[in-house]
């Protein structure tokens, strides 16, 4: 079964469970937003992912995890981006330059995160892998002598196979495996050149399951359903999490030396990987996937209504990129700063677009007008990304806030929902209120609408406004189904409370965990999520480290 059908089934199961439990008249705060169905199926509501804080100490060295503290992990296949980054690191930029990585098969997503977990290959995917492997093989053939690094001999070829095999298999080849490839080399070398043997060997290595899949069998002797990962498997998890690529030699050597069997050893490597500039791309990828910002580069905005967008699009993206890296790298990396920072990094054009009270500090850094803007949720990138149809922006924005930041999940809207059309007879808010007044709609919209209405001072591009067409903006709303329910005048009143919300804090922890594991979290990950959140205390750099120490990061559950 592929990912898509898994997701679909679980959503339908969730929907049915909610209806059966009478939850459809109110949003169910369910732990299992995507993959795991057990919580919803049992009809329970409440943020089970929070679990009890304080349980499960950080030092789980050698201790078996509580058997119910790790949720199921499927088998992941490298995404195209992971594949490209990995082979680039192994063979070097010059060798892979010119390779058409577009031939790699398309990737799936789980929630907002890209992953091929659970996605089967078909003939076109394996054909794509073949084409790319052949291209890299040709390039490797051209550099055969330097890749080999010694005078061609059985010993030299064996050394090459073991050196590159280590990086490609992400563990040492055993003698039998090295033997298979040595024999392959010799066969391909017969009646051909050194370059041909190299070309064919690299072509073959890159099509093996050990390279294409992130294999996890667990420690030898572990025969149960929850298995402790080997040091090499932990190395892969760390590296794919923090660099989006396979591990480097230092990490593999740490695995070999047993360092990744202890929390302290994992900490040291996490710190090293995170400090490396290669993690910048990962940090951006996490935040932009989580907050739904990665489509902005190609978003279709009506340029007749928003002619400024053409020239501001790149500035919006650049602002958020610079802001994310600054908060994470230079500032305190706290959830609070991400949400409430009074500074940003807008171009002069974007600063002018933001309007009155925005002060330029040095041409790139600006200070915001705190009555109108605070942190990432009031940046044009977020506000535009969640305004694909501007008159429906409150619904899109409210949904993103609930799902992405409060981790509240609800069933899809009924068929009739998308048929609503808008006109200029009233404010967008009024029309959305009217269109969703029905009891069947209110089940979800009672929670979605208020959060969205609080952002009504921002138009489809995130520009501050006081009028919606001919109607004065009314952004005040009463938030429900969160831990900070109550009346708010506008987004800038809500956001500081979100920065203090435990629900948001736990949600951030869950989102990082999903990203780290390339899978949805299940109810049995609750202890790990709570433990990481409690250790991190809102510090997202600390959170990354805390996640890599959790039981769920260091084990694989095979089945329920």
């Amino acid at each position: 079964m592929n990912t898509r059908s898994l997701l679909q089934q679980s959503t339908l199961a969730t929907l049915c469970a909610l209806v059966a439990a009478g939850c459809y008249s109110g949003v169910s705060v369910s732990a299992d937003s995507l993959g795991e169905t057990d919580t919803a199926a049992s009809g329970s509501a409440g943020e089970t992912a929070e679990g009890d804080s304080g349980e499960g100490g950080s030092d789980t060295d050698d201790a078996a995890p509580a058997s119910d503290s790790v949720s199921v992990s499927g088998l992941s296949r490298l995404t195209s981006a992971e594949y490209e980054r990995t082979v680039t690191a192994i063979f070097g930029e010059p060798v892979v330059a010119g390779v058409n990585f577009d031939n790699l098969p398309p990737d799936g997503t789980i929630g907002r995160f890209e992953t091929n977990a659970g996605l089967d290959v078909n003939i076109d995917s394996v054909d794509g892998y073949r084409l790319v492997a052949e291209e890299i093989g040709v390039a490797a053939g051209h550099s055969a002598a330097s890749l080999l690094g010694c005078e061609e001999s059985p010993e030299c070829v064996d050394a090459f196979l073991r050196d590159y095999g280590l990086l490609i298999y992400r563990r040492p080849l055993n003698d039998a495996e090295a033997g298979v490839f040595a024999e392959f080399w010799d066969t391909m070398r017969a009646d051909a050149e050194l370059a041909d043997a190299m070309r064919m060997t690299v072509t073959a290595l890159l099509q093996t399951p050990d390279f294409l899949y992130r294999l996890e069998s667990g420690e030898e002797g572990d025969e149960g359903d929850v298995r402790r990962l080997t040091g090499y498997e932990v190395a892969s998890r760390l590296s794919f999490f923090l660099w989006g690529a396979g591990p480097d030699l230092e990490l593999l050597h740490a695995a070999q030396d047993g360092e990744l069997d202890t929390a302290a050893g994992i900490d040291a490597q996490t710190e090293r990987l995170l400090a490396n500039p290669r993690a910048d791309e990962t940090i951006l990828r996490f935040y932009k996937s989580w907050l739904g910002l990665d489509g902005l580069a190609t978003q279709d905005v009506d340029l007749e209504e928003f002619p400024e967008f053409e020239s501001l699009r790149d500035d919006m993206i650049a602002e958020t990129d610079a802001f994310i890296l600054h908060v994470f790298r230079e500032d305190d990396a706290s959830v609070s700063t991400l949400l409430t920072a009074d500074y940003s990094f807008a171009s002069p054009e974007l600063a002018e677009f933001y309007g009155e009270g925005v002060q330029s500090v040095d041409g790139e850094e600006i200070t915001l007008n705190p009555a109108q803007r605070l942190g990432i949720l009031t940046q044009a990138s977020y506000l535009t990304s969640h305004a694909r149809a501007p008159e429906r922006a409150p619904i899109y924005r409210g949904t993103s806030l609930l799902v992405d930041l409060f981790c509240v999940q609800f069933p899809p809207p009924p068929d009739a929902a998308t048929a609503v059309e808008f006109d200029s007879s009233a404010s967008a808010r009024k029309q959305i209120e009217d269109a969703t007044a029905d009891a069947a709609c209110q089940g979800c919209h009672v929670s979605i609408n208020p959060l969205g209405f609080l952002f009504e001072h921002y138009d489809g591009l995130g520009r501050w406004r006081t009028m919606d067409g001919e109607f004065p903006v009314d952004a005040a709303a009463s938030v429900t189904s969160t831990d900070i329910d109550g009346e708010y005048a506008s987004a800038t009143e809500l956001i500081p409370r979100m920065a203090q919300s435990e629900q948001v804090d736990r949600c951030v922890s869950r989102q990082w965990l999903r990203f780290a594991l390339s899978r949805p979290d299940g109810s049995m990950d609750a202890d790990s999520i709570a433990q990481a959140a409690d250790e991190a205390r809102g510090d997202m750099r600390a959170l990354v480290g805390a996640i890599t120490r959790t039981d769920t990061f260091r084990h694989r559950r095979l089945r329920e």
Partner: protein
Amino acid sequence: MGTVLAPFLPRAVAGGDRQPKRLVMITSGQGTDMTTWAPTGSETDFTLSAQLEPLAAYQDRMLVLDGIDNEAAIRGAGRGHFGQGTMWTGVEVPTGTVRPDEGLGWPTAPSIDHIIGQRVGRETRFPAYYWGTWPIATDGPNQGPNGICHYRGSEDPINPQLNPASAFDTLFDGVLGEDPAVAERLRYERRSVIDLVNGELGRVRTEMPTVDRDRFDAHLQSLRELEDRISQITAACEVPEHPGDYTQSEIQSSGLLHVFTRLQFELMRHALLCDLTRVACFDWPHSEGSGAFMEPEGYRSFGSIHTVAHTMSYATDTLNPTDEERVIAREDMANMQQWRSKMLATELLDPLPPDILDNTLLVWSSEMSEGGTHSNRNVPTVMVQGDNFGAFESGRYLQWGEYDPISNFSQFTGGVPMNQLLVSLCHAMGLNDVNSVGDSTISTGPIEELA
């Protein structure tokens, strides 16, 4: 022009058989200006509209189908926007999580290109092949059945290849008939790699936890199919020149749509020439994209196709089009459809040699009629049937149903369900046992009037 590596000789001809039948399926998004699309005149004596006029040389081989309803889109969730997922599958788009904002999932049935390809294309390298131009993709934030027309099966969308270089690599890889020794070596090398990978998969399959076995079995099965595909090398034919390498931002530029359309059509022609596939599908942009490419093609450029489609039909609080703006938007949509007709004639059909063209059926449709009303009724549909194809009585303008005259082309009744056209297409390609495609509660059987 391409390099002739060996005299062109399709396998079927070499074997002394009749030329095989080919199906070309063209999909375009957002419909068109339906007020000026239909021909005028009678069933057999008609004049093509300006939108279809570039195909006039093919009029005696054409069937203009006025009144086909994309019925499954009307029944399913999501409505108008998501008719691409229903038009070639005949099943509605269900609720699901693929499009979280709308709560929609993937269709749960294969599209006819796949059904037909699996039956008629087993001896070609690609039972069906799919080209497209941006912005159609299953990945990225806009993924979903609003952009994907083709499906292998339930919840299994097929991404058209948007990158001509990738299409070239995949299609013509191994088509090098010049030197038998080179071909023999290539075959030998590929077999050797597959053998080795097979061995590794077998080892991993037993070493890894049993829960992972299905995944490795799927991989092994795919590898067996790949072995068949790549063993078919040295089919001597005319390989086109490499289309060149383009960056993602070029591929995703609406200002270059005309360039990529031509590149892809050239690859399509050669794929048919080389008998690499007998079901060739091409998709033009759907819910998004702009008309920036129109100016270099001699028309007026315009912004978002989506916006223009809306402007021509109705007002929203953000648009409030004037009557003049509506007229301009209708012209823009009609121009774009005329340009598409021109591309099909000059870039696809005209350059095909007669023996291929005569045995080819082209069908072109859209998921909607007028994009602004989101109507999935009366989707503009045209077929061109080669002289030897012999499935339908061609040179006809067939008309079913009628518009409510006061509805501004939004209310239409009396049309024929697309599902019946899908059955007719199956029959045309020799799948005579197919009596129903997609949701059989919508309808069954072919469109009798076509024959």
